């Protein structure tokens, strides 16, 4: 081995959040001057791990060694002082400040510690931008006026404005055009030539083959493979390591294949398109059927769902419920036609967190409990209670405040809302996000039962096993296009991952 100790060693890192063990003893070892790739499915623990590395999360256990010495990364500033910089997928730039101001935010060059020397900052920023191959970015321009790719360069310049030894890049190529990706790789090459280590996260295996030195694979909060050679490990092996989750989900029985085939489709989507989000999508949904959309983050899954629901306006195409075309871009039209949505961000988009269960359940059905605008609280409460009981929501108390409920029960409240309304089509966006493992099986059973009772369900999930286990039919998405459609029983996790990652 190298005579010098590794630049960074993380061993046995654990981190739990309420209901989830995000990191369950992760090991990572990074050498100076290497490109170390981090692979894993959504929820495998990549984001948590890099946040620990950036000092944004404090681990519950484990050890971190930096250049041979044990360290604690107590805050983002502490990590930065050591020379660890992180470029997040969602860029953390201040749009109202100039490029130079962003680059030196928090460590501005000053005179006497008070007066910012803007000229010095601009000159230094220009130097960094040139080094990054983008001398055309004017340091005095506002960051908000730059393109996404340029903003990423600024973010990188900010990382390099510190004395940096390790840069973490979280899916840096996701927002880039191919030629910009080439420039990114050139920068990565320059950095490593200078002895800087890069921790590189990407879903694109071909990129990892091009620039990676070694690969660490995460699954279920554990490192299942540490330091594999990036160039020579077969794709098959990498995918095998990422899949086959240890947590066994219990999925409900599916009805016989083709059971719903004879029925008239309740939802028909024809050529639905949104520029830059997804290519024309066609699909049919029959009563009693669960159709899953599988794909990576940014493949257009949620966008399709929200467009069907009218929360986004389609550029082209149409949505029909029972043969009637819906007014585009109108949530109310969709709801009236019998569509319900359980949104991806349950707390931000689905629930009234200050309110009781009853009020969250009845919100879409208020007119049923009112006469000329006056609410009948008792009827409302009784109906909400009945709907939540059908889904065995706990606690069985319609007056409980929604925020005191677990994630699974909050999700049941959202489902109860649409059950109460008597909708025909249910759109589920990441229905088990933030739901702990034990409660998932129950939620799956509920969803299947609703389908058996005649509901048509369109399911989006970033967890491939969930889509495969729950859905009858699966549409695989890659970068906004449906690349494959099949009966869920004919697909397995490997095949789906191959499709979404390499498009083969």
């Amino acid at each position: 081995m190298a005579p010098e100790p590794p630049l960074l060693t993380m061993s046995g890192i654990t981190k739990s959040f309420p209901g989830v063990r995000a990191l369950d003893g992760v090991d990572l070892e990074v050498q100076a001057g290497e490109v170390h790739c981090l692979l894993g499915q959504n929820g495998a623990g990549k984001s948590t791990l890099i946040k620990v590395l950036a000092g944004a999360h404090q681990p519950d256990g484990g050890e971190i060694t930096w250049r041979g010495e044990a360290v604690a990364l107590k805050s983002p500033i502490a990590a930065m002082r050591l020379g660890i910089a992180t470029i997040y997928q969602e860029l953390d730039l201040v749009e109202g400040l100039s490029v130079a101001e962003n680059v030196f935010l928090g460590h501005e060059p000053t005179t006497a510690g008070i007066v910012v020397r803007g000229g010095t900052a601009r000159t230094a920023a220009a130097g960094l931008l040139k080094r990054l191959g983008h001398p055309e970015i004017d340091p005095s321009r506002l960051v908000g006026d730059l393109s996404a790719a340029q903003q990423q360069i600024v973010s990188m310049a900010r990382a390099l404005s510190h004395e940096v030894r390790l840069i973490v890049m979280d899916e840096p190529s996701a927002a880039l055009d191919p030629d910009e990706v080439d420039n990114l790789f050139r920068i990565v090459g320059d950095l490593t030539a200078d002895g800087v280590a890069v921790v590189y996260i990407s879903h694109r295996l071909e990129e990892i083959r091009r620039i990676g030195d070694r690969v660490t694979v995460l699954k279920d909060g554990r490192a299942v493979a540490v330091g594999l050679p990036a160039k020579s490990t077969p794709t098959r092996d990498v995918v095998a390591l990422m899949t086959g989750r240890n947590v066994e989900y219990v999925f409900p029985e599916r009805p016989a294949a083709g059971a719903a085939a004879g029925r008239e489709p309740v939802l028909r989507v024809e050529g639905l398109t949104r520029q830059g989000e997804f290519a024309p999508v066609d699909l049919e949904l029959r009563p009693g059927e669960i159709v899953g959309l599988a794909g990576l983050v940014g493949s257009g899954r949620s966008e399709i769902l929200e467009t069907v629901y009218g929360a986004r306006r389609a550029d082209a195409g149409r949505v029909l419920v029972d043969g009637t075309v819906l007014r585009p871009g109108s949530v109310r039209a969709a709801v009236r036609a019998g569509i319900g949505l359980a949104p991806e961000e349950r707390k931000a988009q689905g629930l009234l967190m200050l309110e009781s269960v009853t009020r969250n359940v009845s919100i879409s059905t208020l007119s049923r409990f009112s006469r000329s605008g006056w609410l009948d609280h008792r009827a409302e409460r009784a109906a909400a209670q009945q709907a939540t009981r059908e889904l065995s929501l706990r606690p069985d108390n319609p007056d409980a405040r929604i925020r005191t409920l677990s994630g699974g029960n909050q999700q049941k409240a959202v489902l109860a809302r649409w059950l109460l309304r008597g909708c025909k089509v249910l759109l589920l966006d990441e229905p088990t996000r933030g739901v702990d493992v034990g409660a998932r099986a129950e939620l799956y059973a509920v969803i299947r039962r609703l389908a058996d009772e005649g509901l048509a369900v369109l399911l989006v999930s970033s967890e491939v096993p969930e889509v495969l286990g729950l859905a009858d039919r699966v549409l695989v998405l890659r970068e906004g296009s449906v690349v494959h459609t099949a009966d869920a029983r004919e697909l397995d996790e490997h095949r789906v991952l191959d499709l979404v990652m390499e498009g083969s």
Partner: protein
Amino acid sequence: MTQPATPAQQDAPMPAAKSAPDKGGSRRPLGLRLDVRNLSLLGVLAVLVAVGGITKPDEFLATSNLQLVLTQASVIGVVTVGMTFVITSGGIDLSVGAIVALASVWATTVATQEYGFTGILFTAVIVGVGCGLVNGLLIAYGRMVPFIATLAMLASARGLALQITDGKTQIVTVDSVLDLGIRDAYILGIPPLVLVFAAVTVIGWLVLGRTTFGRRTVAVGGNAEAARLAGIDVRRQRLYLYLLSGLCCGIAAFMLIVLAGSGQNTNGNLYELDAIAAAIIGGTLLSGGRGTIVGSVLGVLVFTTITNIFALNNLESAVQQIAKGAIIVAAVLVQHRTLRGGDA
């Protein structure tokens, strides 16, 4: 059997199983907390009455003084009811004072007064609703931030009021309007304006707590995106809310005309701040999602009583402003504490 216990939550008997998690010490922490909050405001009010009674026993507790306090509370009180709805929905209406001014001068021009009582009342209400309509359209459909849209309305409505009056006081000569303000018009010792205030309060309380309109208001304020995705027409709701606030301003303007016997472009000065302050100390969340008409009205009464006590004791209005500020801070601090205690 369907009497509500608080505007927020009905006190219906629970059918079965009700051993809910006892986090806030109650099975309906929200309802209880509002009660506690209102009770503490009632306590403050009681202390103030005691202070008034002790410092100026003869004057403060005299019927005529109590009538005066309530009358003074009535005008700003009606404005505050409208403001409470707007704040509960997550909005703000900075233009209420200016709308009151504009409505009061428009309704007291020589031309309007020719149409007598009905003309004045009608004009005041229409001007109020009209301004509310502009606010609502700008905010709901023009996607302007409420703060900015109503700030613009504040400036232009005040300007228009000045334009109409040319800075002069417009004396009201319609006797039927003035008669509402005199002692002979009191019903069982209660001034008619106070009855109007009481009616607006009760209607506001019922609408916020017992109607789909009220429920949608709370939902929009609590989480506008969730409300939209649940199928609520958030924009229309916002439009209605600013219309409602404008309507309250129109009513308040008419009340002010009765009270002052005139219309002035300086009417309603800083009403926006008084109304916001009263709503906030009453327990309405400035960020929206929770509002209480009863709390707002108690807030108005607290502020009006302070003003009265300070006036009776010949204290400077500067001291009075300081006391108001201190009360706002204290009330919000107490609320944070009860909130945190309940949610922990």
